[in-house]
């Protein structure tokens, strides 16, 4: 088995035993990208010299007996909206072409402090707006299991890169499902932490009250190892939570259940057969090990997509106002005055979906419509959060589908609302700020499928434990696409 196909935990053990060097791992990743990424398109680029320099520094630390942590020498690739000093960051948008990050995101800094080798710029839907990674201004990413299909999105580059063994670990960001949905479509594990558990400093903001950085990995243990490094409060992110960070791997192993697991009727009864079947597979497993399945109800979750597209676009219209062609990014050469610079640079730099959402956000915030749309959506958000809180009075976690449909074929036209409704099972979780993990559970038509576990705030340990129990009893984590 090639080094690239090993899990992060296996690589960490090999490094620790000095059976392999960080440089060998880095070279294996680069060779794998060169061999398969022309067919997948997961990477927008990577800096091989910087990658190898970090790997060499890791090897030097280890030979001095000064390894910085479990992940010292293990590569972690970044979605193209997470800053790494001296490296490009485009959010897969033309408006940021040429931009080079002047500082590290907090997650990047924490990874470096843990010795991890931070590399690569992973493709995404432009500014994380989309669920297919075909809204990239540069090229679409393809699903490694069926390259005619989308890998999902918006963290499709991250999920595809891990699934295709180009990197053992990657970071994505999840505003409405953008970690969990591509992870499900690519047959890997995707964890959206509790809102505030991971600092957003250095993440290019899309919808600040919803965005959360999280791990994409081949196994639940790997996701726990990566979360361990990036979690924690941060003075640079006023919304980050200062609560102590538990030992996730230990917490995961310590939690055995039996659990009370809720299945929301609204996420199940009317779900398409493939979505229901993923939940049934997981429910049968948990029942088999003595857990109790409890039907629950989230009556207001059906309004989550509407509330989300008001809140997220309102926040996006404000956050993306900074891309004005003045301070950074691309400036239109056709502009003659300041107003022109804004309007033309943004017209030339943004793709259609980004323009659509900025304009929609401007509309819902317009005087006269603010109360009818934005304020009402925020109240519906409160009700959805209350629905979850009520359910968590009786269950340990919730079991749900990740996505209603398999990943679309690239090039298939899909209606806007149909696209937006594809996030119907993931969006309520972001509105409520809860942690959730997407776990591979089978294949349909040669494509992976997954289920989702949704947890109480800051209870990532129980989620990891539930996901790990399922993973250990199956061989889905070991399956890799043939490329």
């Amino acid at each position: 088995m090639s080094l690239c196909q090993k899990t992060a935990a296996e690589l960490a053990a090999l490094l620790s035993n000095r059976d392999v060097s960080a440089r060998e791992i880095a070279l294996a990743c680069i060779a794998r990208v060169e061999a398969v990424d022309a067919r997948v398109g997961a990477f927008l680029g990577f800096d091989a010299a910087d990658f190898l320099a970090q790997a060499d520094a890791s090897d030097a630390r280890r030979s001095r007996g000064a390894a910085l942590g479990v992940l010292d020498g293990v590569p972690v690739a970044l979605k193209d909206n997470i800053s790494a000093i001296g490296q490009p960051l485009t959010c897969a948008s033309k408006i940021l072409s040429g931009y080079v990050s002047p500082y590290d995101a907090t997650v990047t800094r924490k990874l470096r402090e843990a010795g991890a080798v931070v590399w690569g710029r992973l493709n995404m839907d432009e500014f994380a707006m989309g669920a297919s990674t075909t809204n990239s201004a540069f090229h679409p990413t393809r699903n490694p299991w069926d390259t005619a299909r989308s890998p999902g999105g918006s963290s499709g580059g991250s999920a595809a890169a891990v699934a295709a063994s180009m990197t053992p670990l990657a970071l994505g960001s999840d505003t409405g499902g953008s970690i969990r949905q591509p992870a499900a479509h690519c047959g890997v594990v995707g964890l959206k932490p509790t809102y505030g558990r991971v600092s957003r400093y250095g993440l290019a903001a899309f919808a600040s009250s919803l965005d959360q950085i999280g791990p994409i990995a081949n196994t639940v243990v790997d996701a726990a190892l990566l979360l361990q490094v990036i979690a924690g409060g941060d003075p640079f992110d006023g919304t980050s939570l200062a609560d102590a960070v538990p030992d996730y791997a230990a917490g995961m192993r310590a939690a055995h259940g039996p659990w009370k697991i809720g299945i929301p009727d609204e996420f199940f009864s009317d779900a398409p057969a493939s979505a229901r079947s993923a939940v049934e597979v997981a429910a049968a497993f948990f029942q088999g090990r003595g857990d109790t399945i409890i039907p629950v109800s989230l009556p207001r979750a059906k309004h989550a997509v509407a509330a989300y597209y008001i809140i997220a676009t309102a926040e996006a219209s404000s956050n993306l106002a900074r891309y004005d062609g003045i301070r950074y990014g691309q400036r239109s050469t056709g502009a003659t005055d300041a107003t022109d610079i804004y309007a033309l640079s943004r017209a030339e730099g943004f793709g259609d979906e980004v323009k659509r959402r900025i304009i929609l956000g401007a509309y819902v915030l317009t005087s006269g419509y603010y109360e009818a749309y934005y304020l009402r959506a925020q109240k519906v958000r409160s009700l959805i959060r209350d629905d979850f809180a009520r359910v968590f009075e009786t269950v340990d976690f919730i079991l749900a589908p990740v996505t209603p449909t398999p990943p679309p074929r690239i090039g298939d036209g899909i209606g806007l609302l149909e696209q937006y409704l594809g996030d119907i099972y993931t969006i309520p979780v972001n509105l409520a700020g809860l942690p959730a993990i997407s776990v591979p559970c089978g294949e349909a038509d040669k494509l992976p499928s997954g289920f989702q576990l949704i947890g109480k705030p800051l209870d990532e340990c129980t989620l990891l434990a539930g996901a790990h129990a399922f993973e250990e009893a199956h061989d889905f984590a070991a399956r890799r696409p043939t490329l």
Partner: protein
Amino acid sequence: MTSTTVSSKTNKEGPARTDINIDHLTKLARIALSDEEKLRFAGELCLILDYFEQLKSVDVSGVEPSAHPFPVFNVLRDDAAGPMLGADALRLIAPVFRDDCVVVPRIVDDEG
């Protein structure tokens, strides 16, 4: 300048619910659109706004709005200067940069 106003046509229950003044919106959004784009975007926005109508059926009386999942209040730091990005960092990211300055268009004329 002509004003492009597009009305929702998908409402089956009665007259159009949504009027969009796309010229005003593109101005607010600071995005230049062609006439063809304006029509297309306005039509798409109507479709989405029609979908949003469902929120009117939710009883939100007495409900507090949530701007954040877990509101955190009074996050303050010491009132002390920290490290800042210098001109060299900005030089790399500004579209036009000269003499340690970001070049911006003139916004006040000579007689101002």
